[in-house]
C-alpha cells in the first residue's frame, strides 16, 4: 500500500513538474488563512514590481508550521508562534517576523442594541465559560447602565476550525481569568465549555448576524464589513477601548516585545486588549536567502501601506527596524 501511495504521489509530482514552469528562484509559502487577503495583494503587487512569483497556500497556521518543519516550503504564515516542541523538530533555527497586527472584535446581536456594550475580561471569560447565562446578568448590567438588556439566554458562538483568531482570543481570556486558564487554556482550537461552532470567521459572522442574543469573536474586518455591532473592552484600567487599526497598533507598541518577537500582545497595558500579531516564519539558513530577504523586506516596508485598506494594523516602526536587522541575518 505504501508503494501505492508513493506511486500516486509520484504521479502528482510528475504532473507538477510537467505543468509548472516555476523556476527555483520562486518562493513557496503556506499557512495562516488570516493573512491570506493581504498576502494575495502583496504577492500580486510584488510580481508586478519584480516579476518574481510567490506561491502562498492558505492551508491554516498549523499546517503551515508542519510544512516548514518538514522543509517543504520557504516560509510559513502563522497566527501563533511555534512552540518549543515544534522548534525542536525543525531542521534548524527559525526566526519569527510579525507582518501584520489585527484586532479581534467581540461581536453580538441583541435587537435594539448597537455597537458599544462594554465588557471586562473576566465577564467575557465567564460568558464563554457558560457561567454568565443571561444578557441581563447583574455583572453585565452594572457595566452598561441605561442599556435595556433583555432577559434572554446568551448564545455563544466560536470557531469550529483551528484558527489563529481563537489563539489570540483564548490567550487573552487565559491572561484575565485564572479559571479559564486552568479549565480551557489557549490554543488554536480549545475544548469549549459552551456554545456552538461556525466554520471560519465568515461562518461565525453569519451565525451572529442571523441569530439574536448571540455573542462571538471575529476578526475586525468581518464586523466592519457586515455592520455587526461590536463591544468596547475594558483595558484593565477602567478605560473602554474599541477595536481599530490604531488601538491594535497601540497594543503592540505598549507591549514589551521579546527578543525573538514571539510575544502575544493580548491584554497589553494600552490599546485594544484582544489584538494579535501574525508571523512569517523562516529558517535562519536558507538556500533561497537572497530572494527571501528581498520579499520579506518588501512586506515590511512597501507592503505595510496596504494594511489599513484590508482592516489590519501595520507593524510599529520600532518593531520593523528590529525585524529588518533579523532579515539581514538570513543566509
Amino acid at each position, binding site marked *: 500500500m505504501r508503494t501505492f501511495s508513493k506511486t500516486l504521489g509520484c504521479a502528482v509530482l510528475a504532473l507538477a513538474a510537467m505543468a509548472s514552469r516555476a523556476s527555483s528562484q520562486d518562493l513557496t509559502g503556506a499557512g495562516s488563512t488570516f493573512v491570506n487577503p493581504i498576502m494575495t495583494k502583496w504577492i500580486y503587487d510584488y510580481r508586478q514590481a519584480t516579476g518574481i512569483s510567490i506561491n502562498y497556500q492558505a492551508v491554516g497556521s498549523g499546517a503551515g508550521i508542519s510544512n516548514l518543519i518538514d522543509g517543504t516550503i520557504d516560509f510559513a504564515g502563522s497566527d501563533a508562534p511555534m512552540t518549543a516542541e515544534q522548534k525542536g523538530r525543525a531542521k534548524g533555527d527559525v526566526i519569527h517576523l510579525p507582518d501584520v497586527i489585527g484586532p479581534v472584535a467581540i461581536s453580538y446581536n441583541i435587537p435594539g442594541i448597537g455597537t458599544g456594550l462594554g465588557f471586562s475580561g473576566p465577564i467575557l471569560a465567564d460568558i464563554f465559560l457558560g457561567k454568565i447565562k443571561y444578557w441581563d446578568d447583574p455583572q453585565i448590567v452594572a457595566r452598561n447602565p441605561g442599556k435595556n438588556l433583555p432577559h434572554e439566554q446568551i*448564545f455563544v458562538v466560536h470557531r*469550529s*476550525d483551528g484558527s489563529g483568531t481563537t489563539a489570540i482570543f483564548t490567550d487573552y481570556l487565559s491572561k484575565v481569568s485564572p479559571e479559564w486558564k486552568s479549565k480551557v*487554556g489557549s*490554543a488554536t482550537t480549545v*475544548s*469549549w465549555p459552551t456554545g456552538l461552532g461556525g466554520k471560519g470567521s465568515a461562518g461565525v459572522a453569519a451565525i451572529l448576524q442571523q*441569530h439574536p442574543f448571540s455573542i462571538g469573536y471575529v476578526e475586525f474586518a468581518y464586523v466592519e464589513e457586515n455592520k455587526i455591532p461590536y463591544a468596547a473592552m475594558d483595558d484593565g484600567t477602567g478605560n473602554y477601548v474599541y477595536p481599530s487599526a490604531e488601538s491594535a497598533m497601540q497594543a503592540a507598541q505598549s507591549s514589551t516585545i521579546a527578543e525573538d518577537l514571539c510575544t502575544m500582545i493580548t491584554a497589553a497595558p494600552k490599546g485594544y486588549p484582544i489584538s494579535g500579531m501574525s508571523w512569517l516564519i523562516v529558517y535562519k539558513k536558507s538556500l533561497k536567502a537572497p530572494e527571501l530577504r528581498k520579499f520579506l523586506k518588501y512586506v515590511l516596508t512597501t507592503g505595510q501601506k496596504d494594511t489599513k485598506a484590508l482592516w489590519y494594523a501595520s507593524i510599529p516602526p520600532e518593531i520593523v527596524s528590529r525585524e529588518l536587522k533579523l532579515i539581514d541575518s538570513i543566509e
Partner: protein
Amino acid sequence: MPSEAAVIEAVPAAPPKSRRWETRRNIGDKVYKWILTVAAVSVLLIIAGTIYELTMGSRQSIAAFGLRFFSDSNWDPGRHLFGALPFILGTLYSSFWALVLALPIGLFTAIFLSEMAPRWLERPVSFMVELLAAIPSVVYGLWGLFVLQPFLVKYFEGPIANGPLAALPIFGGTANGYDMLSASVILAIMVLPYITAVSRDILRAIPRTVREASYALGATSWETIKGVVLPYARAGIIGAVMLGFGRALGETMAVTMVIGNAPIFKTDLFSSGYTLASVIANELAEASGLYRSALIEIGLCLFLITLVVNAAAKLLIYYTAQDLNATGGKK
C-alpha cells in the same frame, strides 16, 4: 484464478482452427482476462487500502489513547487531548431521531404505494420520493440554513422553549436552530427515499396468496396489512431502516451546516452537537501530527460503524427477498 474454469466453460467447442490462430487468440484472451481481473481486484484493493491507510493514519492516536479514545468526552486539540465520545453519541443520537421521524412516514408511504395507490399515481409519486435521494447533501444544508432553521425556531422551538414542555429533558437548550433537531429533520428527509423504496419493494414481493388467504378469512384490507403483510415483511423492513440508518450516520455536509458543531453531547434536542463526519469535515484540512491522527481514527471509527450497519442491512434485505422469491412474489 478461480475465474479460469468459468471462462473456459463459457467458450463453446469451437471448430478446429490453424495452430497459429489458436495461439494468437489465446494470448488475446489471456490479456483480456488479465485486464478484467486487475479491474475487479482493484475494487478490493481500494477497500483494503482504505482500511489499511486509515489504520496506519490512526496509529499515533491509537498508541496515545487506546480504548479511552472512545470513552473520553474531552476534545481539546490545544492540550493534545482527544476523546471521540461526543461525536459518536452525537452521530448515533441525530441518526436515531432521524429514523424516529422518517420511519413512520417512509413505511406508510411504502404501504400506500404498494397496497393502495392506483398505478397512475404510484409511478410519479415513487419517482418524486426517489428524487429526494438525488439532491446533494450541500443543497439540503443550504435549505436547512435558509428555510428549515428559521421555520423550526419560529413555530416549534420558540413556543416549546417558552412553554411548559421546556422542562422535559429533550427540550432544553437554546432555541436557535443550530441543534440536534435541525440535523435530525434534515437527515430524516434525506433517508426517507431509501426507507420508502426498499420497504415498497419488500412489500411488493409478498406473495398474493398470503393476502388472499387473509381476505378469505374475512379480514379487512387494513387488518390484512397490519396482521399479515407487515409481520411477513418485518425482517426486510428492519433491513430498510438499517440501510437508512447507515446513510444517516455518514451524512456530512447538511449536518455540519445546521448542527452547531459543539463537541459536547447533550440529550436536549435544542442543544448544539457534533458528529463524526462533521468534525472531520471541519478540522482535517488544518490538522497535523497527533491531531490529524485522531481525526483519521474518527474516520476509521465512522467507516467501521457504517460497514457493520450496512452489511447487516444488506443481509436482512437479501434473505427476506430470497424467502419471498422462494414463495413467489405479488407481481
